[in-house]
């Protein structure tokens, strides 16, 4: 791996930040139905990890998945269109925030089920390797996911079969309202050790630190060293889900939130750029995000007649459910 590209990392964290903020606006405006799980505050993780990957490498995201999708290279405009449920979206408006996928850039999808994606990614990477493709995979998940048996089974399978996967735990301290200490007996890295996987803890608020750790791990993994885990310690700046903007849930002390927000990955990385360079990137990002929103809102809504399009890849057609018998 080459060293970090400070500008590139900044561009990505800034893009995710502004994308999320604009998406929240669109939730408020009723243009994104169902709300989103904002990635605000955690941008450095997706940015740092994906910068360590190649375009042909594979990733899976989470319910809090826009950052992963964008960092891996999906078009922001089509991603925003997907959130708005438009025909022009990545998934033709069929997936929405929690299922945004772009297989053409190696994004096997955000996944709304906590802990479910790890084994899927492991299988996909294994299949590519069997064909001789030199890919690795990175699967993102939260601190809540390390208590899901299905993810722990995936740790075992990947480790046992030495599938080249980087397991990336975004430890933001909470699973919805549940603090890590109330949910995780032992430690997150101890979960990896149990399956003989090396594990590294990194400051998730520092994009370059994440990148350095991920790049080193990916290099070892690609060289055949077997899967690894990275625990990126981070903080969620906003709500678990935008419904919290409407309904107040009381579970994080205000001082904690303030302290968490003080270490902002966008600023940490931005401060590494010359001010004019940073301003330049900000302007580029702003233009990109403006265009993304415009593209999204201009896209047509899908025709209800196609509601069951792609239900079966085989072309099997399902009987409709209406009163037609």
């Amino acid at each position, binding site marked *: 791996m080459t060293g970090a590209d400070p500008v590139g990392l900044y561009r990505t964290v800034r893009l995710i930040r502004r994308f999320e903020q604009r998406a929240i606006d669109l939730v408020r405006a009723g243009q994104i139905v*169902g709300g989103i799980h904002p990635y605000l505050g955690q941008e450095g993780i997706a940015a740092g990890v994906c910068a360590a990957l190649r375009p042909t490498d594979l990733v899976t995201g989470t319910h809090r998945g826009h950052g992963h999708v964008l960092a891996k290279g999906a078009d922001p405009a089509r991603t925003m269109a997907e959130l708005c*449920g438009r025909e022009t979206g990545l998934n033709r*408006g*069929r997936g929405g925030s929690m299922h945004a996928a772009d297989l053409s850039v190696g994004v096997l999808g955000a996944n709304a089920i906590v802990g479910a994606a790890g084994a899927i990614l492991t299988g996909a990477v294994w299949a590519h390797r069997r064909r001789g493709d030199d890919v690795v995979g990175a699967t993102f998940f939260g601190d809540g996911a390390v208590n899901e048996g299905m993810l722990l089974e995936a740790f075992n399978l990947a480790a046992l079969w030495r599938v080249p996967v980087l397991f990336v735990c975004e430890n933001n301290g909470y699973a919805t*309202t549940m603090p890590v200490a109330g949910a995780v007996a032992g430690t997150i890295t101890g979960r990896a050790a149990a399956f003989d996987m090396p594990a590294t803890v990194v400051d998730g608020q520092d994009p370059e630190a994440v990148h350095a750790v991920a790049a080193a791990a990916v290099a070892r993994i690609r060289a055949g060293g077997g899967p690894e885990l990275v625990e990126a310690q981070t903080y969620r700046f906003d709500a678990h889900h935008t419904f919290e903007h409407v309904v107040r849930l009381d579970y994080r002390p205000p001082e904690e939130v303030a302290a968490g927000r003080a270490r902002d990955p966008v600023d940490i990385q931005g401060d590494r750029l010359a001010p004019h360079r940073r301003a330049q990137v900000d302007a580029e990002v702003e233009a990109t995000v403006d265009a993304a929103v415009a593209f999204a809102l201009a896209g047509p809504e899908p025709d209800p007649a196609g509601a*069951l399009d792609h239900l079966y890849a085989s072309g099997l057609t399902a009987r409709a459910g209406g*009163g037609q018998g």
Partner: protein
Amino acid sequence: MRLSYRRALTRALADELARDESVFLLGEDVRVGASMITSGLCRRFGPERVRDTPLSEQAFTSFATGAALAGMRPVVEFQIPSLLFLVFEQIVNHAHKFPLMTGGQCAVPVTYLVPGSGSRTGWAGQHSDHPYPLFAHVGIVTAVPATPADAYGLLVSAIRHDDPVVVFAPAGALDVREDVERLAPVPFGRGVVRRAGDDVTVVAVGHLVHDALAVADELAGQVSVEVFDPRTVYPFDLDGLLASVTRTGRLVVCDDANRSCGIAAEIITSVVERVRLAVPPRRVTRPDGAVLPFAPGLDRAVQPGREALTAAIHHVAKDPT
């Protein structure tokens, strides 16, 4: 008393927690009450009886089974209907089977509560299932209350019942409010005629009861529609329905699950095994194998709606005998 469906569920939990020390709640974010159902209960009953769990659905579902074997009456809340897929083995292969397999040595009184089942607009494919027919198939008591009074009464009955019970609280019903005089347990397998009529019997499940009533009102004058709410899909009140359908001779079933092997099929078959209908019955359901697409217009298109129900009623009513 003006009662919302949500508050009715909260009230049922509170009343049973107060009444019986062996009742306790288990689930994700139940202390804070992220689902808006368990709000306030932790303050009143303490974190031992309103237990937040790690994201370990399989383990906490089986933990509830074990606690029930030892005499407790756990209520397990699930945040998403499809989490029931994740714990299907734990419910069907263990909780359900223990009494018979042990030759009657034990009971497993667990309630599984799913607030917001079916489509919550915009939550898309993995959050919008309505899998009550799966539980009717495996033979687990399955309630789908339509009204606040029934939400209260069926949840209370579930908690007091000696076998596992799944309670689906459809997203489409959570905002329903009604004036309720008396809160009381509602027995399983006892449906209710929500609106009397002479021409066509419409069986509607859960939130669709309200759609059926609206359609029936709209059609008043043209077709006299009787609306039957089974309240529990397993056991199903066949006698109650037969009383209606033997009068009307015409049957439409409207439910929000997939069509194939759904509850509509079960209801229609149970009827035609016993009664000759005047005209062929109709189903208004989700399509076979439905996956709910994200875009709101697509999501709606996949769900059974008033238009499709109206069309089916017209069709059945017009059909010459």
